[in-house]
């Protein structure tokens, strides 16, 4: 058996698995999104493009906009926080680099639910911060932290920051630090050095990081569920409700399909950059 033949044989098990259990279900979701529910709340197939009109109904459109807004705010905050951290470690970490990046990422490996819950325990009305404020007599009524957009966005940042730091660090670490010295020696201002030397090197990492944070953030429902309330619900909460509570699968599937279609643009950006990176790695 030729090597190529054998390699294709090895493609079969996982290839079939992903085809039947990953790609096919996405197709079924799309089919269901055009269906309807029978009186017993069972999804039946059909031709009801109206489900997609409902998605953009004035009742639900604000939720979609909010999701995108929250996710973008999360991306910006992650970039503002993650860049200095990644830069600091890549440039000044010295021989502790690997250890530092591992320690930085460590909290993000803890269960996302547990991490979000930690903030609930700290910020809720009976939580630690309000307890301290009360003891110090700083606030009579307590401060409401949870159930605000800030809490939800904060939860998302705390949830997905590592997806920004890792690619940024990878990109910045590859950069030769003597390039920065060279930029300075050639009388480049700090800004010029950043723009002509650091930024081109960091760009791949920034792009990958932004996409890797945006994708899960836009589909998240835990942060809005635990740190927010009905006023801060995101599209993830809506999808979850339709599938698991309201039993309106066609509408839930339509929401999922719209979200997936919107995210495909971002995914293709990421996939292209990842494919380029893996080609470079192989070359």
């Amino acid at each position, binding site marked *: 058996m030729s090597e190529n033949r054998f390699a294709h044989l090895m493609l079969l098990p996982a290839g079939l698995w992903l085809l039947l259990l990953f790609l096919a279900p996405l197709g079924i979701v799309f089919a269901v999104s055009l269906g309807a529910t029978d009186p017993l709340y069972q999804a039946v197939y059909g031709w009801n493009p109206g489900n997609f009109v409902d998605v953009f109904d004035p009742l639900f459109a604000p939720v979609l906009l909010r999701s995108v807004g929250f996710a973008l705010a999360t991306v910006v905050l992650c970039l503002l926080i993650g860049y200095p951290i990644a*830069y600091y470690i890549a440039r000044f970490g010295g021989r502790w680099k690997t250890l530092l990046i591992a320690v930085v990422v460590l909290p993000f490996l803890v269960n996302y639910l547990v991490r979000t819950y930690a903030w609930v325990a700290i910020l809720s009305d009976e939580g630690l911060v309000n307890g301290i404020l009360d003891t110090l007599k700083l606030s009579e009524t307590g401060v409401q932290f949870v159930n605000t957009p800030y809490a939800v966005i904060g939860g998302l940042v705390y949830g997905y920051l590592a997806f920004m730091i890792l690619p940024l660090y990878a990109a910045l670490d590859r950069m030769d630090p003597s390039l920065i010295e060279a930029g300075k020696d050639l009388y480049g201002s700090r800004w010029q050095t950043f723009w002509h030397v650091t930024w081109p090197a960091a760009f791949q990492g920034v792009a990958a990081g932004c996409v890797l944070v945006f994708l*899960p953030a836009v589909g998240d*429902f835990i942060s809005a569920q635990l740190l927010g309330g009905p006023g801060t619900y995101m599209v993830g909460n809506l*999808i979850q409700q339709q*599938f698991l509570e309201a039993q309106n699968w066609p509408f839930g599937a339509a929401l*999922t399909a719209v979200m997936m279609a919107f995210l495909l643009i971002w995914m293709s950006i990421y996939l292209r950059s990842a*494919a380029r990176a893996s080609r470079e790695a192989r070359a």
Partner: protein
Amino acid sequence: MSTQGWAERLPVLGRRATRRRRRRRGFDRPRFLRAFFWIFMFFTFAPLAIVALFSFNSTPSLQQFDGFSLQWYDEFLSSATLRESLMASVEIGLVTMVVGTVLGTTLAFALVRARSRVAQASNLVMLIPLVTPEIVAGASALVLFAQIGIELSLATIMIAEITFSISFVTVIVRARLSALNREVEEAALDLGATRMQTIRLIVLPALWPAILAAGLLIFALSFDDFVIAFFTTGESPTPLPVQIYSSIRFGVRPTINAIGTSMLLISFLILAVAVLLPRLLGRREEENVLIGRDAA
């Protein structure tokens, strides 16, 4: 401009120049960045430390630490439901680890060695699960199981988790595989070894650290996963994260601190093994893969 004007300005210019030089030196020894780094560390670790601390509190309060006690751990481990949930999560992690590692490794092998359009396309398709939001994964798995009429149970969670762990394994193992030196393999084939023997005696031993690290990683991921499990879980037993979610929704309870702290410890333990084992086996490349240099 008069000469006098210059004379007046000169010291100012001089002072400015020194200040700029000093600032540059400050940039190289980045006090600001270091301060920012430690503030960041505080804010990422403090919440977890607080949960861990209050899991030992002797009263249910989340505001005051009133003394050391293990009662919340006792409550966690003496509850039959919670114990079953813990076992369910471990089972999901183990099955996903074994099946996902085998499938992911074969896929990595195929993607590195196969040359055809199908293989090229698979290279891209393989990456999609990595960037699909979990809620889409969960919803589509739920719809699939409903359509083919499979009742939701632990098995459905396992199938869904395996689907989303294959790609992680493939990415990690592929990096190691494409770095392998082919000459040894070719020599083995020239000397009359069969393809299976070559794989068993030459390729697999070289890939072993990467496979192990990938396996532990997907164990940790599927053991911890909430969203996909939430969509595909049956009535009982439900995995631990699902159990945690439903109790958080009914309000903050100190038992959650104990469960959370236990899960935190389990995650750290598995990851410590995932990082240390390959090193003990004498390879260092995997840590690059683990911290995502390859993924970026």
